[in-house]
């Protein structure tokens, strides 16, 4: 981490914001990791795409947003949902298929929503929510609201045509939207060099006259700083903005550690995995907070204990919740 740069950013931030960001990152990490054993044991059957290693993006982006701002997500959106304020008990209950889940057990891990927190929906069709996010931004523009929409998508979505149509339309209409590409270098099992002739996703935005940036997605302060500026641009009617966040997932594509080959071994080079473990966004931020006296080890232990308690309570809530009534199988197809 470039400590000087981070220190410079942190000086403009309140201590409470730094602690809040740390708290939320750790919350996401512990929540994600709590799912590993239940997945391996077969207790959780719903496919979960864990975001361990990518927390800094969810947290840095969402910390720069207001509650009323919108986000749209992907198959890997536990972190986005929690960072924007979605409830952990409702997340775990959803993964367990319970009626108290955020989607009443109809959606599972890949369909998360918390409309009152601006989590407008996450879906697993790659690129599927990009145009929806453009539409939400269009709605805000028509209503003349001071509201920003963030469209989260992965590097894999850069292979989908809808991204290019959406960038063009959003640019034409100068919509208040941030295209937030989380480039974790793999599209399921496919390394990016086998998906794109050049690893240059952020440059796509330039072709549509959209200010486009690439940033270290494992540095929560840099993520926050750049997104904050992007939010301001959008609110000044100077949207859209395209940001590519460079990152890496510490687990497999799906489940505890599977990259789709079906044998729970990681197909990624060991050296690469080790290198990215050293760049773990949570460890980096912890080191920064300790070295600059924002938190002590004791503080961190207390925070960790509190979050562990929160995670335990979320599981108790999920386990004590009922499954949806079988008689309600076809409810909700239409809204009355």
């Amino acid at each position, binding site marked *: 981490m470039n400590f000087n740069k981070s220190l410079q950013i942190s000086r403009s931030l309140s201590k409470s914001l730094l602690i809040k960001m740390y708290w939320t990152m750790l919350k996401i990490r512990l929540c994600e990791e709590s799912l590993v054993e239940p997945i391996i044991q077969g207790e959780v059957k719903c496919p979960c795409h864990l975001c361990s290693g990518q927390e800094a993006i969810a947290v840095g982006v969402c910390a720069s947003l207001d509650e009323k701002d919108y986000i749209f997500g992907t198959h890997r959106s536990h972190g986005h949902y929690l960072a924007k304020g979605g409830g952990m008990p409702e997340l775990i209950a959803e993964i367990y298929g319970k009626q108290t889940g955020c989607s009443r057990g109809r959606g599972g891990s890949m369909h998360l929503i918390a409309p009152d927190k601006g989590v407008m929906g996450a*879906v697993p069709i790659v690129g599927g929510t990009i145009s929806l996010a453009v539409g939400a931004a269009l709605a805000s*523009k028509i209503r003349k609201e001071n509201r920003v929409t963030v469209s989260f998508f992965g590097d894999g979505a850069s292979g989908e045509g809808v991204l290019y149509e959406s960038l063009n339309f959003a640019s034409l209409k100068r919509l208040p939207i941030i295209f937030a590409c989380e480039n974790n270098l793999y599209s399921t099992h496919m390394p990016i060099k086998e998906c794109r002739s050049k690893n240059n996703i952020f440059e796509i935005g330039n072709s549509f006259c959209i200010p486009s940036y690439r940033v270290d997605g494992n540095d929560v302060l840099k993520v926050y700083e750049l997104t904050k500026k992007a939010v301001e641009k959008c609110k000044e009617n100077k949207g859209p903005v395209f940001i590519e966040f460079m990152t890496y997932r510490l687990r497999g594509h799906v489940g505890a550690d599977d990259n789709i080959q079906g044998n729970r071994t990681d197909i990624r080079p060991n050296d690469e995995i080790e290198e990215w473990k050293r760049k773990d966004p949570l460890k980096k931020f912890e080191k920064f907070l300790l070295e600059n006296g924002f938190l002590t080890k004791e503080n961190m232990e207390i925070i960790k204990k509190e979050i562990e308690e929160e995670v335990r309570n979320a599981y108790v809530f999920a386990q004590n919740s009922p499954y949806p009534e079988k008689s309600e199988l076809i409810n909700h*197809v239409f*809204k009355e």
Partner: protein
Amino acid sequence: MSRKLQYSLAINEAIHQMMEVDSSVFFIGQGVKSPWYVGNTATGLLEKFGSERVIDTPVSENAVTGAAVGAAIAGMRPIIVHPRMDFMLYALDPIINEAANWHYMFGGKSSVPVVIWGIINRGGEQAAQHSQAFHALFAYVPGLKVVMPSTPYDAKGLMIAAIKDNNPVIYIDDRWLYKTEEHVPEEPYIVPIGKGVVRKHGKDITVVSVSYMAVEAVKAADTLKEKGIDAEVIDVRTVKPLDYALIFESVKKTGRLVIADVGWKSFGFAAEITAAVCEKAFKYLKAPVGFVTLPDAPAPASSALEEIYYPCSDSIIKAIEGVV
């Protein structure tokens, strides 16, 4: 107050009236500024409501339909128009994966009140990619409603009902109907989604028709009256949810059924109605069901082939004479 109004202008009036009373309604799609694309259905909208609510778009059906769906998720009531339904296939992801599933897959926490309007452009030697009718495809998908008005009165009333509905509604019209004219009330009104109508009462045979074929079916019934065959014509108006009760009631009375569709024969509208009647009203059938549909083939360009590709009232007469 009622005065005569063209079908296309009845749609136009519905949009004007809804945009006036509800600021969340907006109109978006390719060619909304161009009569060449949307006929006179968009007349006066841009002038009255401005380019913020009447949005002409590049040919990007996927993203623009997705944007309409996303705006609906964010609380608007968009109308997205596809001047040729064929191009709407680029937008199957936002229509089916997103809009249709949305309310269910989020357990009812979010809904998609969007009107997705596709215009059928048959004939005119336009061939396979400018003429298709995909109502059966969309009706197959849970979570979508599909309406197909055949009269100016219904065109207005169903458009208003579609805009007010809290779900994605596929509104399908046919350019062959645009010049038809009848008395249409000036004030806003609703034709309920899911309710068919008996266009002509009869006792000998039931003709279940949809969209343009409802017009042809009434013509056929008038001709057959002179020959002593008393046909009952149902215009379903809504393909999904279909008014099964109305169909069963008529079949119980007549014991005979011909289905007149604007689509292909296999796996479609006619097949669904046949299946439903076999399931719920089989014992009333006195004869095999007759079909008036497109053949299972793409539309040809040559007018010599078009003449036999598209069924008309004569095709319906033949089908009826085959089962009575």
